[in-house]
């Protein structure tokens, strides 16, 4: 009898305090952890690129000799524009502006898809000119770095299309728009990586 009384007493104990953690919702923490792993991934690529380039400076052409800097500059500008449209979509849903959310998300998808299209166009021209991945360190590092980034942009566009479809179905509200914020973080990260890649691959 004494045992059962003790048991009831234990059950009635208040639960321990829950951990507040970072103070943000799980999806956002998860995205930041994922982006942390992405930082390490791209650092490995960039670090390898630096050491190869320092060790073999003659394997690289001067900026603008092989790679098309003007068209890539336009592409860089497009990606910056897409970051603005993405953040405007986020601001719109925060303000409860459903029409603005849909409009800015569609713009982001279109600009992102254009970026990928321009990159395919650039690859096609470079390959026609004989600049292929098997052409030494310059070719292999260029296609590896820009290819992985292009893959990330493509995945971002696909995810953005899904988020846009949900936005058109009214799934995001002023009170709960986690999906928009999380895809936005990924999209801005892809833009941030391109800012670094554009400088070290095309301009240096």
């Amino acid at each position: 009898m004494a045992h059962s009384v003790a048991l009831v007493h234990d059950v009635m104990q208040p639960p321990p305090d829950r951990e507040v953690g970072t103070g943000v919702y799980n999806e956002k923490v998860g995205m930041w952890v994922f982006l942390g792993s992405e930082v390490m991934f791209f650092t490995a690529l960039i670090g390898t690129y630096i050491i190869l380039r320092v060790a073999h400076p003659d394997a690289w052409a001067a900026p603008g000799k092989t790679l098309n800097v003007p068209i890539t500059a336009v592409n860089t500008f497009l990606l910056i524009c897409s970051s603005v449209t993405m953040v405007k979509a986020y601001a719109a849903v925060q303000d409860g502006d459903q029409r603005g959310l849909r409009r800015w998300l569609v713009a982001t998808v279109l600009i992102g898809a254009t970026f990928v299209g321009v990159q395919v166009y650039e690859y096609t021209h470079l390959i026609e000119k004989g600049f292929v991945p098997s052409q030494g360190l310059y070719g292999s590092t260029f296609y590896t770095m820009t290819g992985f980034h292009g893959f990330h942009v493509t995945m971002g566009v696909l995810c953005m299309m899904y988020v846009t479809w949900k936005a058109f179905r009214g799934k995001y509200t002023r009170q709960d728009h986690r999906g928009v914020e999380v895809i936005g973080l990924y999209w801005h990260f892809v833009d941030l990586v391109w800012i670094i890649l554009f400088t070290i691959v095309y301009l240096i």
Partner: protein
Amino acid sequence: MSDPSALPSPTPVKHAHPNYVGIFIGLAVLTALELTVAFLPWHKTTLILLLIGLAVWKALLVALYFMHLRFEHGRLRILAIAPLPFCVIFVTAVLMEHFGKW
């Protein structure tokens, strides 16, 4: 028990919108500056330092304002910048190995 209001909310934290168009103009100007600097007949090391400085400046603008790190909780900021020391160690280590100073 902890205060329920202190628990993570499904609603992202709201703050006043930064001037996104102003930041966009800043990024566009910095990109134009990069394109100008890259083809100046200056010493290679100077150009590299300048270009990397401009790229880091642009990346910071994106991270602080578009990714809203400037307005986030302190612990999330720590989570976000946690990989950076490892990046510095990695790049420094490979460069040291190359220059034979390790």
